[in-house]
């Protein structure tokens, strides 16, 4: 799946949990979920569960710990999707 498509889908998923609307509007690959968007760690769990549901993948603890910004999320989603095929 193309990176731009994943970014758009990610934006839909994280939108309800974002505290910093401006950082969200200006979201790039380098946007950090906690520091830039001010998503708290509890809501980050919900973001990850929503990602699992959206892409029908399972995120393990190790991936969860790495999934702190948009870039890492795209990498993990892409890898897990590739593993499925």
């Amino acid at each position, binding site marked *: 799946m193309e990176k731009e498509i994943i970014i758009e889908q990610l934006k839909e998923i994280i939108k309800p949990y974002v505290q910093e609307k401006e950082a969200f509007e200006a979201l790039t690959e380098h946007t950090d979920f906690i520091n830039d968007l001010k998503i*708290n*760690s*509890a*809501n980050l*769990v919900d973001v*990850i*569960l929503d990602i699992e549901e959206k892409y029908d993948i399972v995120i393990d*603890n190790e991936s*969860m710990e790495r999934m702190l910004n948009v870039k890492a999320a795209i990498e993990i989603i892409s890898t897990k999707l590739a593993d499925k095929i």
Partner: protein
Amino acid sequence: MKFQEIISRLPYSKPFLFVDEIIHIDEKGVEGTFTFDENLEFYKGHFRDFPITPGVILTETMAQIGLVCLGLFLLNDTFSKNTSIALTSTEIDFLKGVYPNEKVTVFSEKIYFRFGKLKCKVWMKNTKGEVVCSGTIAGMIV
């Protein structure tokens, strides 16, 4: 883990322990009770001359029984004195009042327990079997 052992491991004490007994507990959920003693301090001020249990205390009671007792059970030996927990979100509807000396029963069903976060559907009933409040509560290990 025995019911009494779970209660003794809770990180609360009077006047902020709101669990008397656990009636049932398994991986999916928990059921427990608490009786609101009329001498509890907050009744003196909530409300003045009209004591009724504050919504935040009902929420806390549902969190202690429904979330913390269940979390302790699920974590078993990985929960220690050094484990710190935090309430992360609540969404509760209040339907009926709870007055001094009333006994309530709290029911909780696990929605998920992932990455250290436990989210549950909770509800509280009075002795008449009426639902007094219900909603969802989540907390996590921090």
